[in-house]
């Protein structure tokens, strides 16, 4: 028997695989294609105080081994989430992580409080690193601002609190530490890498928003290093993500120091990928005579 379960604060996941926020909708969309009762956790699309329309189209372009997105946090808002999305998801035996962006610490805290009182989440991921809305990035590029948001939300909830960090920084370690010191129970990283694409034929930017966030296999080397560095700087667990397409990729993140992993862009190609990854991790552990996934976490030499 192999023990695949991991803990992020007081959240227990039956296996270390969750989904990247914004890449799995609210689960309902893909319930035909994956058994939500078996997934480690579902991390849902960013949910804000008020509904947001998102950015104009085109919002996504494909790049070599990846894609750029500039969705702009389109979502129905917290009340819509609680009334329309949550009841369906609660029909499944899977923990729910809700991704929460915000305009300022109070805005973050408002959604965190609503989620807490409405029992709308089993863990909350503070999205302080979205590159696609103005000021979205500011928090996770500055240790002080990161600490401010995390500390404010820490006062607003007893739910496990994750800070989602940005790779678009000179050094992720001080930011990871600031989040830990301010009371985060874990970190999620990486969010997308900021980039752009230009159409030589039309001489225009390919995204209406000009810039977007790069995700997919092309960013895996960047993500692995950020995870490894953050893991060396903090004691709290990390959900690693960035280009994970297969169990082998996921194992690399666990070895780098992540306690759990998220499949993001991979869901677009294969919405069942989270369970395939979990099964692949299990086979790997078995084949290498490990009994507990914790034995490979941070085990790279």
């Amino acid at each position: 028997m192999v023990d695949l379960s991991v803990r992020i604060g007081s959240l227990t996941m039956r296996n270390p695989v969750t989904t990247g926020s914004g890449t799995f909708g609210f689960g309902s969309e893909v319930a035909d294609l994956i058994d939500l009762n078996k997934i480690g956790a579902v991390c849902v699309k960013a949910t804000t105080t008020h509904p947001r329309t998102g950015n104009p189209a085109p919002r996504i372009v494909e790049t070599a081994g990846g894609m750029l997105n500039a969705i702009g946090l389109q979502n129905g808002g917290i009340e819509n989430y609680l009334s329309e999305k949550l009841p369906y998801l609660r029909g499944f035996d899977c923990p729910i992580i809700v991704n929460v962006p915000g305009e300022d610490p109070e805005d973050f805290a408002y959604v965190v409080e609503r989620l807490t009182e409405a029992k709308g989440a089993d863990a909350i991921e503070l999205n302080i690193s979205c590159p696609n809305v103005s000021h979205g990035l500011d928090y996770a590029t500055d240790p002080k601002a990161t600490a401010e948001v995390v500390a404010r939300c820490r006062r607003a909830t007893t739910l496990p609190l994750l800070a989602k960090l940005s790779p678009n920084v000179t050094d992720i370690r001080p930011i990871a530490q600031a989040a830990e010191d301010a009371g985060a129970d874990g970190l999620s990283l990486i969010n997308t890498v900021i980039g752009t694409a230009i159409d030589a034929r039309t001489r225009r930017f390919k995204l209406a928003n000009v810039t977007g966030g790069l995700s997919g296999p092309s960013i895996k080397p960047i993500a692995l290093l950020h995870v490894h560095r953050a893991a060396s700087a903090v004691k709290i667990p990390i959900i690693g993500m960035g280009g994970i397409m297969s169990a082998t990729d996921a194992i690399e993140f666990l070895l780098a120091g992540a306690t759990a992993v998220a499949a993001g862009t991979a869901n677009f190609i294969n919405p069942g990928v989270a369970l395939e990854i979990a099964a692949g991790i299990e086979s790997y552990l078995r084949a290498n005579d490990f009994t507990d996934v914790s034995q490979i976490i941070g085990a790279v030499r």
Partner: protein
Amino acid sequence: MIRRTIAPTLSNTPLDAPNHFVMTFHAPELAREALPGQFIAVAAGGGMQILRRPFSVYSVDPEAGWASILYSVYGPATSTMAKMKPGDELDFIGPLGGRVFEADPDPSCHHIMVGGGYGVPPLAFLCRNIRAANPNARITVISGGRTKNLLVGTDGLEEIGVTLEPCTNDGSCGYHGLVTGRLEEVLAEDQTAHQPSYVYTCGPTPMMKAVGDLSIEKGVPCQVSMEVFMPCGVGICMGCAVARHDGTYARGCTDGPVFPAREVKW
């Protein structure tokens, strides 16, 4: 139900139109469940491209258990598909699409399909369904192309009593000019004859906009099947934004791909 299927292909036949193919594959569930306007998301790899690509369901045979798509070769995915041989596996997710072509239930309605290029296949599928439901329904397909041999997707429709109205930019076949030119005439004839009409369109975006605008102008209901880049096809990425007049964005994949022309802000 949406399924991921690894389907053996049965045939992959080049058409007279250069770089156009019809691929049939064994997919009994899809053949049973797919509706006109729905599509499948195909993983056909090719270089450093990672995302699936949407292709409309062209025809189905629920009894024999096969379905087909008609595609034209542009980039990596369609180039890979063009090389596939019978027996090779097609990896697809489907049927996809939350809102499909809905035929006007009025038995006296004149169903007018306006299509261009690889937009014709879902309209052909719709024609066959309308005919199956109503042997007397009046159906016209106005299809456009630059020149005669670029008109695709209408095979077998005449045989089931569909009126074909080809339009070519160079006059090499049928009406000499754009589909909207011929559509305007047909709508005028219907109006004169007090014949209720309904327009369904799928094709290049500028064509669909023109068809939608004309229909709205003439007061004829119109459904358009939006062609936007669809990174996931299943409603989870929000990348397929279709702007609505109320300032919000719909998902092209699950809120569409078919929209009332009035709803779309082009």
